[in-house]
């Protein structure tokens, strides 16, 4: 057990910047901008119109009837959702580039000769990288989401307390911070399943490319997509070319995008939604679970597992150039 923990820790040590700092700094920047926005509004625009994302602070400062309370709480949820999606966006980029360099950098700097001098098999090493991309990185991002959200609520209640509105406590009582973050936690299994084809493909490129793994990783699926579209290959299977883009190209490259299990239809509904509560329901814990009822992501995940297997074989059998 300690052995596997150390293999995971080794990935973290190497990628602390991406796994730990990047989400935290993103959250910090969000907080800084939010604080600035409130301060600017406070001094320049007049309190009545202060708005922070979905949160109409100005309204809340004026009336306190039931509906306003509800809107106030949901506005805060909306803000937390913004934090979640922003950090999720950074997570997607971090995991993408992590996988792409995981098996490439060690060959480039020849440190693979050190790693291979120790009794750790290739499958243990590669699987520890899959674990880091699919579990460690999202959990650390979740930590950053939690820290940022807590700071955000703290700053908000501090501001409201300073304004002497008596609303400070409502920041905590009317919002649903835990529910939002639980939604994120519940989405991690879905994240892993949806990310597997991308993790597998990028690790394969990382183990295979002699140089420029990014170029290969992007050009091969996109090039294939263009060919398919140009020659109408999918029509012979009576499928539109977009099927290939959606189910092959996108799954190979964009699988780490958080929320990619949310369907296009749901997205349209989110766009039309006239309140954060609708959005919350649409992306609630049920959504990632129902997305997993569809066989397509599982088939893609199986292909991802196959590519991970190939990456292990490559790391094992590849000759190191002198």
């Amino acid at each position, binding site marked *: 057990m*300690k*052995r596997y*923990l*150390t*293999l995971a*820790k*080794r990935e973290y*040590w*190497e990628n602390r910047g991406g796994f730990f700092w990047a989400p935290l700094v993103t959250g910090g920047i969000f907080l800084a901008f939010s604080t600035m926005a409130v301060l600017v509004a406070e001094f320049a625009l007049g309190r009545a119109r202060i708005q922070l994302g979905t949160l109409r602070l100005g309204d809340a400062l004026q009336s306190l009837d039931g509906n306003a309370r509800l809107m106030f709480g949901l506005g805060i949820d909306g803000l937390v959702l913004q934090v979640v999606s922003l950090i999720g966006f950074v997570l997607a980029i971090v995991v993408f580039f992590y996988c792409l360099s995981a098996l490439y950098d*060690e060959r480039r*700097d*020849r*440190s*693979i*000769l*050190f*790693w*291979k*001098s*120790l*009794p*750790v*098999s290739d499958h243990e090493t590669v699987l520890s990288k899959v674990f880091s991309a699919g579990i460690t990185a999202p959990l650390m991002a979740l930590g950053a989401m939690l820290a940022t959200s807590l700071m955000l609520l703290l700053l908000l209640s501090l501001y409201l307390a300073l304004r002497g509105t008596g609303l400070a406590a409502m920041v905590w009582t009317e919002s649903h911070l835990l529910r939002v973050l639980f939604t994120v936690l519940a989405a991690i299994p879905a994240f892993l399943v949806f990310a597997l084809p991308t993790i597998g493909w990028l690790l394969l490129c990382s183990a295979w490319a002699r140089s420029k793994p990014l170029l290969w990783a992007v050009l091969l699926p996109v090039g294939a997509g263009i060919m398919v579209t140009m020659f109408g290959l999918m029509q012979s299977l009576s499928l539109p070319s977009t099927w290939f883009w959606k189910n092959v190209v996108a799954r190979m490259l964009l699988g780490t995008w958080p929320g990619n299990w949310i369907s296009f239809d749901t997205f349209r509904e989110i766009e039309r939604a006239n309140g954060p509560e609708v959005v919350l329901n649409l992306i609630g814990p049920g959504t990632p679970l129902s997305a997993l009822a569809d066989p397509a992501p599982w088939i893609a995940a199986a292909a991802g597992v196959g590519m991970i297997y190939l990456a292990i074989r490559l790391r*094992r*059998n590849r*000759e*190191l150039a*002198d």
Partner: protein
Amino acid sequence: MSAVITARGLSKRYGNTRAVDHIDLDIEAGRIVGLIGPNGAGKTTALKAILGLTDFEGDLKVLGFDPHRERSELMNQVCFIADVAVLPRWARVWHLIEYVEAVHPRFSRDKCMAFLNRTKITQKHRVKELSKGMVVQLHLALIMAIDARLLVLDEPTLGLDILYRKAFYQDLLNDYFDEGKTIVITTHQVEEVEHILTDLVFIKDGRIALSATMETVGERFVEVMVKPERADEARALGPLHERQVFGRHIFLFDGADPQRMEALGEIHKPSVADIFVATMKNGAAA
């Protein structure tokens, strides 16, 4: 003692070139073997096969394991430094110690710390902050703290200054080696390892040109300094190699009669480097 490495007909082809061409090799436990050959002779390829880093043709057993198929088991008992400066540059010293301790059952943290305490390296240092010589010290400290049965060193001191090179081999001999362990070293710098070797293997064009213990080498090879007027006489005896220094002819003989040699001129014990040069110029001597 039991054989640590046994190779029969070991071959490795890259396209049409045979990097290693039907090598037979037996290395016993408790030996320090120098694997010596010019660039491209196949030393590194042979080592890669021994370490399971490449597939190969022929029979090869290392500590009873097939190195390519049973690599993970083998690595519990074998250690290697395949190149200088392969430690990951991002890592801190304590990262490496913690990692090796967790994955290697025969690693001793105390031993490793004892070696490191003799250097200027601290646990907080990152590998990229260390000089090349210090990186080698760190690598050696990690490796020597592992109680492995076979240690393979491929050009371990390449690019280091003389102080580090001397210290490297001294540490290896004083603090690591014992009769239960076996060390295989490849290097260009023959002079530096010659005094610690027990066995010598020369490789040329993928084949073994010479394989002998240092004692036999000492008995077999002899160098005679001959005056010019007697040079033809010496040449008639079939020397391995001839060179001239200050108007005198120096002949290197393999397995010559000592009395005849003494009659020819002044006798020297040739250095391994001289034997190496002669062997490489003349073809197979084994």
